[in-house]
């Protein structure tokens, strides 16, 4: 039952995404929001405009006002102070709108979250359409992500489970290092 419902919602979202891709297919306007990144991601995003990458040749532009934006490009783990501004920016955007998480921090919180100071990834604040991993993602990765949002390139990453048959006996797992750290 549950996964059926999941399927249904996924289909709906796929349909919306298809529509968005039809609409934005050849021109996309981006509003970027820094939700607490170390400025490496910003640096890379800015470099998208330099002659080496020049994403404007792909019909992708950065806009000043979210009112003109189709896509919200978010970096950083969403610090407490940036949560409301981020929400506001998203609210200020017209439908339909895409959200792209840039960098490990935005995708999952990276090394920063969730903690007392940050949400740990923008998924906990906004619905995310595209994840661009990396710390920071290189400009090419960014371009791939943006074009993926537009449905102009194929997705290469596929998750899943692979099963290895091992003859050796399994032994007990020692708890991973991190749990120890957490109690600081």
């Amino acid at each position: 039952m549950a996964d059926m419902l999941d399927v249904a919602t996924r289909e709906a979202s796929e349909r919306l995404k298809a529509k968005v891709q039809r609409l934005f297919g050849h021109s996309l306007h981006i509003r970027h929001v820094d939700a607490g990144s170390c400025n490496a991601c910003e640096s890379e995003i800015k470099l998208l405009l330099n002659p080496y990458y020049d994403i404007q040749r792909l019909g992708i532009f950065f806009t000043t006002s979210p009112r003109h934006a189709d896509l919200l490009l978010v970096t950083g783990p969403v610090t407490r102070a940036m949560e409301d501004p981020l929400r506001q920016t998203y609210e200020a955007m017209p439908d339909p709108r895409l959200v792209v998480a840039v960098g490990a921090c935005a995708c999952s919180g990276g090394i920063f979250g969730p903690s007392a100071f940050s949400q740990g990834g923008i998924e906990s604040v906004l619905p995310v359409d595209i994840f661009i991993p990396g710390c920071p993602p290189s400009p090419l990765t960014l371009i791939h992500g943006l074009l993926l949002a537009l449905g102009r390139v194929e997705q290469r990453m596929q998750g899943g489970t692979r099963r290895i048959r091992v003859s050796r006996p399994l032994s007990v797992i020692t708890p991973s290092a991190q749990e120890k750290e957490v109690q600081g």
Partner: protein
Amino acid sequence: MTWNLLPAFAFWTMFALYALGVALALLMRQGHAITVAAALCAAAGGLAALVAGVGVLVGAPAPGGVLDTNLPFGALSLRLDMLSAFFLAVIGLVSLPVAVYSIGYLKHNAGVRRLRAFGVLINLLLLSLVLIVAAADAIVFLMAWEAMAFLSYLMVNFEYEDRQVIRASFLMLAVSELGTVGIFIAFLLLYRVTGGSGYEALRAAAATLSTPLRSAVFLLAFVGFGAKAGILPLQLWLPEAHPAAPSHVSALLSAVIIKLGIYGMLRFLLGFLVGTGIIPAWWGLVVLSIGAVTALVGILYSVVQDDLKRLLAYSSIENIGIILAGLGAALTFYAYHLIALAAIVAIAMLYHVLNHAVYKGLLFLGAGSVNHATGTRKLAQLGGLIRLMPWTALFFIVAALAIAAVPPFNGYISEWMLLESLLQSFAIPDTLTKVVIALSGALIALTAGIAVTSFVRACGVTFLALPRSKEAAAAHEAPLSMRLGMGFLAFFCLALGVLPTFVIPALDRVTTALLGQSVLNQVVPPLFTNHPGDYQLLVTLGGALFKGWLPVNGLVVIAAPAFSTIDSPSYLFLAELLLLGLVMLALRAIRPLGVRRAGRVWAGGIPRFEASMTYSGLAYSNPLRIIFNSFYRSRVESKAIAAAARHREGSITYQQEIPPPFERGVYRPLLKFGEWVTRPVRFIQSGNLNQYVFYIFLIVLIVLVLRAI
């Protein structure tokens, strides 16, 4: 009775209505009832004036009459010639809505005595106004003129508790009397030739005068009436009196009373002096250049004002300047025997008189209801009113568009015709004259540009953004009577703008009477007739749409025959309506993608968007102030904080002070000089009543003696 007797009937009932108004105001007891009765009488009088004026303009016989007295100065006569009729119509057009408006405006003003005073005064004032234009001889004119001066003084003094008000109204009276002296002498100069005080006699007298004397008369009349109209440098009373007066009074002041200054000039210059043929060219150039400068100075000060009504007052000065520029151009053209051009400019000028009366009246009423609703006129405390008082906002913005000369509203057509005809100076042989006219044209154009800024600022800061004070936040829409008054004028802002070809024939009659040549068929090509002559092309271009449906020559206006630059606000308006419809359809056609959401104002993600973040009037006009500062000679005191203070978030101070024009340069020295001169004769003003009675006795004695010999 047949229709063409109606104007005469209306003309005489008008006086009766005003008298009735006075009587009712005196007899009735209950405060509000007094207001209503008096205001209704005044309104009815206004209607009558409108009917009479328009009636005569469209060709009804001119009413008039002579009351023969055996006073030393002969008969008193009234007559409604074309010029008078035009101004009578203007008076009616404005006083009718103003009277209605005052019902609502005064409701909150308690105090029976005060309301009774209002009831009496407004009717008397209007009576004096109509007498001024209806007068057909100097005596009636002067008496009515003085009455007007004094009554308007009392009206401005309505809120006499305020010292500022007293000061302002007194200043107004003083300047007005100063002007009257000039006017009186001008009349005398003509009077002493034939000894007849009737306009005909004066006209005849003017013809016999030597040119220097005629120039003297011209100057005296120009300055004397200029003081009322507010030409530079006699404009100083306007920005004081207008804010001081109750808004409906300021509306009358700006829309009608200062126009009577123009009326006087027209009466003298075009009525008496021009009729006689040759006039020196420099008359026109003087009027033109002073007009142009007045216009520029007026608007430059309008754009930096913080008090809404003061802003409007300065813009009245500007418009008077434009009108004078028109008059000056007309005189110049006339001097060079370019009668047709002179007539066209004169039409444009009269049209502007009419338009300014309508939209400035409306603007003052609008400012009045803003003041009524918020208790303040300071732009720095207003804002966001369009949500709280939508009707007022609508009317005010219509008037602002009109005064900014945006089609399809009425300011556009007259300013366009005026500028076009100023471009005609090439027809004049004399180079200097050409230059002066061209320069004045440039100044007027600049003025028009700044006027847009000024009124974008006025509307934007008053009605848009967020309320900048809790008074503004608590504002309420104006009561019905006020909305009616404003709506009436707003309607005319549109009508006069869209249907110029219905107005121009009437104006043409006025100028024909004054200059003796009709230019109707040049300005409004007869496209609806069967033989359009030179304008066949226009007909084939569709100029003759609606042919045979409308009782006019056509709907197309040609301001400058030489270039035949053409415009038709009427068709333009239709086009605009069409466009609007198309846009509406388009909007309906495009379905918004996704859901429609109403969100917060986008301000960069800050928690609250506040009034302090909206653009202020000061900030809006500051760049202009910086550009023209050498002229304003403003003082700015701004204290940026010392480094240490910053950590206490030490507050900053910012002070800007712009002295009124010529204050330092002209008035202060003049005042000093005046005091120095009058010191020896102060003893005359002893304050002892008997002494004053004695003075009067002396005067009467002298008059009788003079009469005897």
